[in-house]
């Protein structure tokens, strides 16, 4: 137990040294570390509870996605049957997660089935090999039923999440925040972490808008009052203005140009009125559509509609052929900016809801760091003094091992780019308390062996041998608890699990190697007749 080959000793020291050195970048300012080679840039990340910032958990509305899909199926069915000139009664009805249609003539049923089966696509596009399709078509008593299978729904949900993440990313980045984290979580959630953001109100507002943008004509055949009285033309709908007071507009359902055709939007000031406005630019196809529409409707008003609310309804004074325009509509500088961000980032495929929000201000974060540091120092000092008083020279050995242990914890945390949270700091302090346990186990065993009548060297040897098995067993149980905690925890709690788990690994390592090595050297140097323990 006390004999190390030269190579083994060297290996142990090198390993410990390299792991400790991994902590070095943390002691230099971030800007300086950025100029170092990439492999040296790994460092501890402070959790949101320490550096301040906002944590938002967003949920994609799965019911909306389902409804959207079924509405689409309904429209497809209607069009397919009309194109094939197959009569149906009662329209296409969406109910019980399915679209249903009753075919008028029984002789048409087979033809209709064939036609509607064409709507169904293999799941996963051309690469799809599962044999599953995105629609199931069945027929009973002249009623054809189209259902969206579970697998197809999940597939759609997955795509919706992926798209949403992209849009969310663009919107968050537009805020000019530093290193935001945007991740998918589970089947229907998106995690957004923005360090340093103190008030997430604006972010939530930006993420809460679907931002479905449409340019549509205003229906001038009826006044809003007439429409409200029930004389609404079938191809128009009544929409409210976005800005107060709520004003009704009658807007045609047909979309001239959609937000997808936008390539740029900027908040600027109008040159004449110096009001904040949003200027935008279409891509080629959008520009062509817009030019044609404005040419045909000179003198008539059109509506700029965002999420079914009318932002403004200007009159077309002349054809707009350049594919550029500007929206004015009682904006403030910030609301113009926000609209420009939303237009640039594009529309979300489904609405997002904030289901969890945690924000920590920078003041509290700084306080927590200071308190955590103080507690860590005081805790370490108490433990160090106690070990010195109890074990004297061997206490010095134990303290050296604990110091290496803590340095290695920081090294490993940096190497993993792990997040340090306040409970994480608590985990490190606890590890200091626990790390000495491995030394205590060894030392108490040595004492016992000495009492049992062994001579100094053989007692030390036996003490290590017997204690190490116990150390391994007892630490594995704690490690299991830490692993479970890591698996179920989020944020700060996960930070605790990480430091606890890493602390256990380094504790076992130092007990098996460093402590033993130090004592072995001392034995070789002193050749002790008695153990001062």
């Amino acid at each position, binding site marked *: 137990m006390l004999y190390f080959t030269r190579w083994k000793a060297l290996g142990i020291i090198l390993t410990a040294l390299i792991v400790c050195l991994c902590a070095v970048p943390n002691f230099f300012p971030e800007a300086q570390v950025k100029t170092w080679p990439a492999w040296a840039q790994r460092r501890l990340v402070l959790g949101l509870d320490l550096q301040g910032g906002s944590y938002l958990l967003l949920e994609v509305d799965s019911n909306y996605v389902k409804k959207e899909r079924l509405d689409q199926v309904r429209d497809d069915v209607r069009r397919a049957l009309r194109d094939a000139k197959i009569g149906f009664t009662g329209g296409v009805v969406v109910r019980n997660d399915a679209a249903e249609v009753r075919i008028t003539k029984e002789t048409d049923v087979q033809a209709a089935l064939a036609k509607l089966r064409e709507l169904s696509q293999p799941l996963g596009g051309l690469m799809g090999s599962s044999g599953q399709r995105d629609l199931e078509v069945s027929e009973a008593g002249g009623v054809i039923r189209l259902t969206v299978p579970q697998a197809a729904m999940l597939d759609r949900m997955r795509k919706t999440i992926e798209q949403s993440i992209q849009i969310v990313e663009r919107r968050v980045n537009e805020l000019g925040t530093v290193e935001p984290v945007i991740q998918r979580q589970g089947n229907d959630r998106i995690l957004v972490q923005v360090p340093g953001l103190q008030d997430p109100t604006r972010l939530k507002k930006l993420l809460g808008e679907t931002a479905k943008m449409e340019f549509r004509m205003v229906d001038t055949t009826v006044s809003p009052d007439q429409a409200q009285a029930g004389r609404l033309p079938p191809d128009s709908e009544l929409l409210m203005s976005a800005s107060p007071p709520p004003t009704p507009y009658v807007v045609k359902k047909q979309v001239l140009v959609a937000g997808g055709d936008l390539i740029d939007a900027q908040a600027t000031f109008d040159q004449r009125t110096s009001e904040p406005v949003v200027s935008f630019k279409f891509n080629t196809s959008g520009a062509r559509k817009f030019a044609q529409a404005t040419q045909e409707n000179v003198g008539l008003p059109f509506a700029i509609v965002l999420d079914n609310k009318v932002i403004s309804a200007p009159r077309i004074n002349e054809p707009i052929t350049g594919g550029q325009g500007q929206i004015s509509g009682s904006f403030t500088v910030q609301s113009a900016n926000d609209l420009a961000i939303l237009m640039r980032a594009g529309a979300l495929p489904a609405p997002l809801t904030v289901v969890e929000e945690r*924000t920590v201000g920078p003041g509290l974060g700084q306080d927590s760091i200071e308190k955590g540091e103080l507690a860590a120092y005081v805790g370490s000092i108490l433990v160090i003094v106690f070990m*010195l008083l109890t074990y004297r020279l061997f206490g010095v050995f134990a303290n050296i091992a604990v110091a290496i242990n803590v340095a290695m914890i920081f090294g490993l945390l940096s190497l993993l780019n792990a997040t340090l949270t306040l409970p994480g700091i608590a985990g490190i302090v606890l590890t200091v308390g626990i790390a000495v346990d491995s030394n205590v186990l060894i030392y108490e065993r040595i004492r016992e062996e000495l009492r049992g009548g062994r001579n100094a060297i053989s007692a030390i040897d036996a003490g290590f041998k017997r204690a190490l098995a116990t150390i391994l067993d007892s630490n594995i149980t704690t490690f299991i608890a830490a692993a479970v905690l890591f698996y179920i925890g989020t944020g700060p709690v996960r930070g605790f699990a990480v430091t606890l788990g890493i602390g256990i690994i380094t504790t076992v390592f130092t007990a098996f190697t460093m402590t033993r090595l130090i004592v072995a050297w001392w034995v070789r140097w002193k050749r002790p007749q008695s153990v001062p323990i």
Partner: protein
Amino acid sequence: MTHTVLIGLGVLIAILTVVAALGLLPSLRIVPDDTHFDFTRFRRISFPISAALSIVAITLFFTHGLNLGIDFKGGTLLEVRAKSGAADIAAMRTTLEGLRLGEIQLQQFGGPENVLIRVAEQPGGDKAQQDAVQKVRTALGDSIEYRRVEVLGPRVAGELLAYGMLGLMLAIVSILIYLWFRFEWQFALGAMIANVHDIVLTIGFMSISQVDFDLTSIAALLTILGYSLNDTVVIYDRIREMLRRYKKMPMPQLLNESINSTLSRSIITHFTVTLALLALLLFGGHAIHSFTAVMMFGVVLVGTYTSIFIAAPILIYLGVGEHREDAKDEAAPAKKSKA
């Protein structure tokens, strides 16, 4: 100020280290070297006491319940600080009650400028919680600093609770399986009984002290579990070793010897953990206050007691050592007396 103190303490440690290395310090012995306490005899007292305490804890859990924190209950929590002077809690209360958001609690903590505001979960799902926090922010305005804001919808809170409980079960089961592999099944069972005992008592403590039961409490519970087991395993390891070495020693005596020979380690380790926890409790700030308080109770009070007075003696009832040829006579009556 703190820096000078820390530097001073650092110098003190350096001096102590040198003195200790030279062997000039008297050696401190918390526990005398050769103890012979009859711990297993205490089982006739400790088992009924533990059973009674567990029943009290369970009763408390059902009558008083746990003070569910926002993590598990949902709702809104704001930690605010007046930008200058003391916070006017009365005025804030009037303002917030005017919003008609149901139950609102305001509580001062850690100085007159700090206020903790809890708004109960709003009916109407996730959107309603968001609207509520918006109203509170608007009503309180910019005269205060928002140090922490947490808003949880009802579904996420429910999921977190379910997840936390699941994690607790998962940890117990996986540790059990590990112990079953490393020891005999009786040891695993004994450790589990000790484990459940720890958790029940700690939950009783949380119920009586009404500390917030939230995600960090689950973390505390899992840590208590880990450390209590750590302790139990150390004693079990020794019992296993003794079982191999002394084939003729009666079980109660063997258990006593095992506990006594690991006693000084148990006490010293718990003392160092207590020192670390004490530092966290006194200086770690209120954010981890309930976390450390629960740990202090669980690791220091319950954990030590359990491994010595429950986990080890219970092995007698579980029939450990029965199959050793010479020990049969001693172990059998013990089992009968339980039945």
